[in-house]
């Protein structure tokens, strides 16, 4: 391992080497031979670098494209300002519409709650109590009965209203009796 370390240091070091490594190289023919061979290979490689033919036209195009690419980001950012403003207005209006919809839903829910009869409100609280303290069967049965009665009442009321609209007061015993 000392051979590799010594050769590596000799090839890549800035000249100053630890004394023990320097001593090793001095006495090791194998290391000296490898250092010489690798240094020669490095020089051969440098000589083997490809010689490029300069294409002036290509180079001018390259310069022009690079210079314009440096200037483009600035132009692009000033051009995109109206689009950014439009996007901001769109996002703001979408947010406002969403907020208004939520508010409207809330007020509808509150009016439904206000229209419930006292009996129905009591049933709801009974059902919720059963749900909290009683068995699952109790709470389910209470809420089911409440739902059935509420739905029944609603259907009855709506059917009567609808029938009244359709038949008119004469058919339902109105107007002239």
């Amino acid at each position, binding site marked *: 391992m000392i051979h590799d370390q010594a050769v590596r240091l000799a090839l890549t070091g800035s000249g100053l080497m630890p004394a023990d490594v320097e001593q090793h190289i001095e006495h090791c023919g194998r290391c000296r031979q490898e250092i010489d061979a690798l240094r020669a290979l490095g020089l051969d490689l440098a000589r083997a670098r490809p010689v490029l*033919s300069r294409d002036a036209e290509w180079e001018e195009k390259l310069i022009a494209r690079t*210079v314009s690419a440096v200037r483009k980001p600035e132009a692009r950012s000033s051009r995109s300002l109206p689009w950014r403003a439009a996007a901001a207005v769109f996002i703001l209006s979408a947010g406002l519409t969403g907020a208004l919809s939520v508010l409207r839903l809330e007020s509808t829910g509150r009016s439904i709650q206000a229209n419930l009869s006292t009996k129905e409100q009591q049933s709801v609280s009974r059902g919720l109590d059963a749900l909290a303290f009683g068995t699952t069967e109790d709470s389910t049965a209470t809420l089911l009965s409440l739902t059935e009665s509420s739905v029944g009442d609603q259907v009855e009321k709506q059917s009567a209203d609808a029938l009244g609209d359709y038949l008119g007061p004469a058919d339902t015993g109105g107007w002239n009796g």
Partner: protein
Amino acid sequence: MAEAKDPWLDDIKAKRQDALEAFVRAHTAPLVRYLAGMVRNGADAEELAQETFLRFATSLGSFRGECSTRSFLFRIGHNLALNHLASATVRREILAGELPEGPNQGRSPHSDTLEEERNIRLRRALKTLPPQQRSVVILRTWLDLSFREIAEVLSLAEGTVKAHYFFGLKNLRKTLEVSYDT
């Protein structure tokens, strides 16, 4: 540690056109040479060089001068070359046995001379090295970059770069011995 000031940094950051032009002029040939050593042929190298300069130009705003402008340019080129090598088409071509060549392959009027033959063999051997070793050896021997600069380009520790150089040369020597024997 006192370090030589990057002569390009201020003018290029200020986007002075004459400085940019001079920078591109000064670095085109070394960059194309480096890329030619990394990729399949001269045409690919020129294409990558164009892309490198464009990316360099568009990322100047985010460049904070943590390394020299030259290192920054070569780092972009190096990453593009690695991406290019990793692309499926290039991998297929290399696997199929088409050995990558340098840009002036077959162009030199003295290609029949012994020296030119030896150069071609060296460039071929260079392209059999793993990409990191190849990069280090090319940047060191073809472009005369210091180990410190190479470390900046490749985003590696200086010690790692030196190790890549040493093993790169050793591997090359082995490859060339085999090719000389056969």
